[in-house]
């Protein structure tokens, strides 16, 4: 049994690098954010370490250590995950939001540590909430989500302005920010003796309370949509829900801790857990984004591959590659609708499912089209398997339809050729019947009349003699007419002397000088010879009727199993195949024999009619 994970991972990595290479050229500005993030992170850490020492009294040393270390890890992890997602999926907003959230995290920490007293804290919460609420569609699905985001944004804006205003009013001026010993005090440390401190503290509390409620709201929204979805969609939401939970926990923990005297060691443990979650969840996010993209990319690749007709027979290859399962076998439902066929076209039974084989049936609206026999491990990726199966079903169905159309086309072509051949045969028979029947009878009649005329004494019965003479002349005229009619039905020269001779006699009867250059085998299929003959006849008729030509030239030869006819004239040109119904019908006949007929005719430059008819004999 094959270990399914190894080759799949290999294919996965291969694809990943291929894509990365393809994208790299457009990704340099994003890559510049990596050193920026590292630098900013280090800078913030440097600010943070002295800043937190002021809080030892309040929080305890261990808490601060966790906080300082965790701070950097969360920031960098978030930026890194965001950049990877951004780099690999520039078409989706997730990567950008996550990257921004990472920087917002640093901004918040720096803001907390600096003398502005935390004016820019909390934007991380806004961005993560946005990320979670827009996942995975890129849009906010619910009105509640939009309201919550608006509330968070408004609260943050008010808080920032408030903080800055308080600072501008000089309320923090008791301490010079340039003095290294002057510690920017956490808000609760503000002395009530300072004017406006009450207002400030109230505002700060409200701010935290609102944020706590808002993040809880985000979690609630996510839980609701998690509960409403099922199957693969539910699985996709897991990192988003977890992220919302961690965020809510972090904010609520901060609020609770501030307002109540929570047990320190419990609080530290919770804080550590939240920080670890906040550091890891962006990675889970990105992993999921990439996996989703991989699945979609594989399917897109597959569809593109299957759209190329030349790759048609590679369905199995393409599917094995798309699913990363070298053991995969494609079975197609046989045209007679009784059994499955393997890739070599042999009938096979659908295998039973076991530890090594899973079967996914492919169906279209007309019924079963085939089945995929694959590694059961693929069941863990229902979205990928579903998309690939759909593409495979489409491809197989397409191929079946194409084969059907092709077969019908061939049938049609063959039947058209048969109809033309039958028509030619019928004309030949008709001409023979005329020759052996009516024409002979008329000749015999003319002769009999002539004999009778000869036996009448013209002096004794002048009227009878004249009548018989008239009658025999009329019979002779009828013979001539009938001969022309028979020739129009099927030229006897064609079956007796071949196409070359028949073309000569056509040229001879034309009212303008026509030269014939024909090097043809004596034996051509009758349908071909007859069609060629009538094409030339019709062309010469058109030339003499419409072209105002002085002369015409007919060229006929067999090249590579095709009879090539050209009829040129030096007339006024401007002829059009679509206008002459006679030529149109002959073009149809040529096409019925697998050939073609075209007219090149520029005004004032004569006309060239070119016909090609396959005559492999």
């Amino acid at each position, binding site marked *: 049994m094959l270990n399914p994970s190894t080759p799949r991972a290999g294919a996965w990595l291969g694809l990943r690098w291929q894509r990365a290479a393809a994208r790299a050229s457009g990704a340099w500005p994003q890559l510049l954010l990596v050193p920026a993030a590292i630098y900013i992170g280090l800078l913030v850490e440097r600010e943070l370490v002295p800043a937190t020492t002021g809080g030892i009294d309040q929080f305890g040393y261990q808490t601060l250590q966790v906080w300082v270390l965790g701070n950097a890890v969360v920031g960098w992890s978030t930026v890194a995950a965001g950049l990877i997602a951004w780099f690999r999926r520039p078409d989706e907003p997730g990567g950008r939001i996550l990257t921004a959230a990472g920087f917002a995290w640093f901004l918040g920490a720096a803001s907390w540590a600096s003398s502005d007293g935390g004016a820019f804290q909390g934007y991380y919460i806004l961005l993560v909430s946005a990320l979670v609420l827009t996942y995975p569609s890129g849009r906010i699905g619910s009105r509640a989500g939009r309201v919550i985001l608006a509330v968070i944004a408004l609260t943050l804006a008010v808080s920032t302005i408030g903080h800055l205003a308080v600072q501008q009013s000089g309320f923090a001026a008791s301490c010079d920010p340039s003095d290294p010993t002057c510690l920017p005090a956490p808000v609760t440390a503000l002395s009530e003796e300072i004017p406006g401190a009450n207002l400030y503290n109230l505002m700060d509390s409200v701010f935290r309370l609102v944020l706590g409620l808002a993040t809880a709201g985000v979690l609630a929204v996510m839980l609701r949509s998690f509960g409403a979805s099922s199957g693969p969609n539910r699985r996709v939401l897991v990192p988003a829900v977890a992220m919302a939970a961690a965020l809510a926990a972090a904010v609520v923990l901060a609020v609770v801790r501030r307002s109540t005297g929570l047990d320190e060691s419990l609080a530290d443990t919770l804080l550590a857990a939240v920080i670890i979650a906040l550091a890891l969840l962006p990675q889970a996010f990105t992993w999921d984004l990439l996996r989703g993209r991989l699945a979609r990319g594989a399917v897109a690749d597959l569809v593109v591959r299957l759209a190329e007709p030349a790759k048609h027979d590679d369905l199995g290859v393409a599917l094995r590659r798309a699913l990363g399962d070298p053991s995969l076998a494609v079975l197609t439902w046989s045209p007679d609708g009784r059994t499955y066929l393997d890739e070599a076209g042999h009938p096979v039974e659908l295998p039973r499912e076991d530890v090594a084989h899973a079967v996914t049936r492919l169906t279209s609206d007309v019924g079963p089209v085939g089945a995929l026999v694959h590694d059961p491990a693929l069941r863990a990726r229902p979205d990928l398997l579903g998309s690939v199966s759909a593409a495979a079903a489409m491809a197989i169905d397409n191929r079946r339809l194409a084969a059907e159309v092709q077969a019908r086309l061939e049938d049609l072509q063959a039947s058209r050729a048969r109809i033309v051949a039958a028509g030619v045969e019928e004309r030949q028979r008709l001409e023979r019947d005329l020759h052996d029947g009516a024409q002979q009878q008329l000749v*015999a009649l003319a002769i009999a009349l*002539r004999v009778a005329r*000869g036996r009448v004494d013209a002096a004794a019965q002048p009227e009878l003699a004249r009548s018989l003479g008239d009658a*025999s002349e009329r019979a002779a005229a009828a013979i001539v007419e009938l001969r022309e009619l028979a020739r129009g039905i099927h030229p006897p*020269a064609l079956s*007796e002397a071949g196409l070359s001779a028949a073309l000569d*006699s056509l040229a*001879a*009867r034309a009212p303008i000088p026509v*030269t014939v250059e024909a090097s043809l085998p004596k034996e051509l299929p009758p349908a071909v010879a007859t069609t060629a003959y009538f094409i030339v006849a019709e062309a010469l008729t058109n030339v003499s009727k419409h072209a105002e030509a002085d002369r015409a030239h007919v060229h006929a030869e067999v090249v590579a199993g095709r009879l090539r006819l050209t009829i040129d004239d030096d007339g006024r040109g401007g002829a059009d195949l679509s206008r002459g119904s006679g030529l149109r019908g002959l073009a149809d006949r040529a096409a019925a024999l697998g050939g073609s007929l075209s007219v090149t005719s520029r005004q004032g430059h004569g006309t060239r009619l070119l016909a090609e008819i396959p005559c492999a004999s």
Partner: protein
Amino acid sequence: MRVVIAEDAVLIREGVARLLVDAGIEVVGLAGDGVTAERLVGELGPDVAVLDIRMPPGGATEGVRVAQAIRGRPGNHTAVLMLSQTSDAGTVMQLLADGAEGVGYLMKDRVADVDALVDALHRVARGESVLDPVVVGELMRARREPPVVAQLTLRERDVLSLMAEGRSNRAIGERLAVTDKTVEAHVASIFSKLGLEPAVDDHRRVLAVLAHLQAR
């Protein structure tokens, strides 16, 4: 004059026989197919064999085969007059391949014109050549080269057609109502315009003219 008639259509065969008998020609044998015709000609040695072109057993060109067989016999003195329902220059040239002496080719409907038929029989029996004007007309127009015939005057074209039909100078003169001298002058002019060697015999003249008209 003794004639054998080969024609697969009974009505025509009997009709032609009666016509000829009425015209004072001795019909010594009747055949319904090419093989019988060949045998009768061998046995009876007629002056002329009147042959249908399309006959059993050979079909479309059985008449040509019989004609070639008759004319190929050593010491043959039987002339051949082909009757055809269609005008086909190719068949004519095939027929004349062994020489134009004592060979004729008439359209079947011409048969009703008993004078023309009898005239043709007499001419081929004398060793002349006879070609139906319909066939000659086709040949006159079936030029493959730049139309040399177009260089000829109208009168010269008439003379050329009559020459191709196998007419002698005298017959041409009668037909066109001009003197022999005038015809000779036209013939000389035609030959020089077409670049042909002057030919003495009428039937060689036919061949030369036909060969020229047929030339590729």
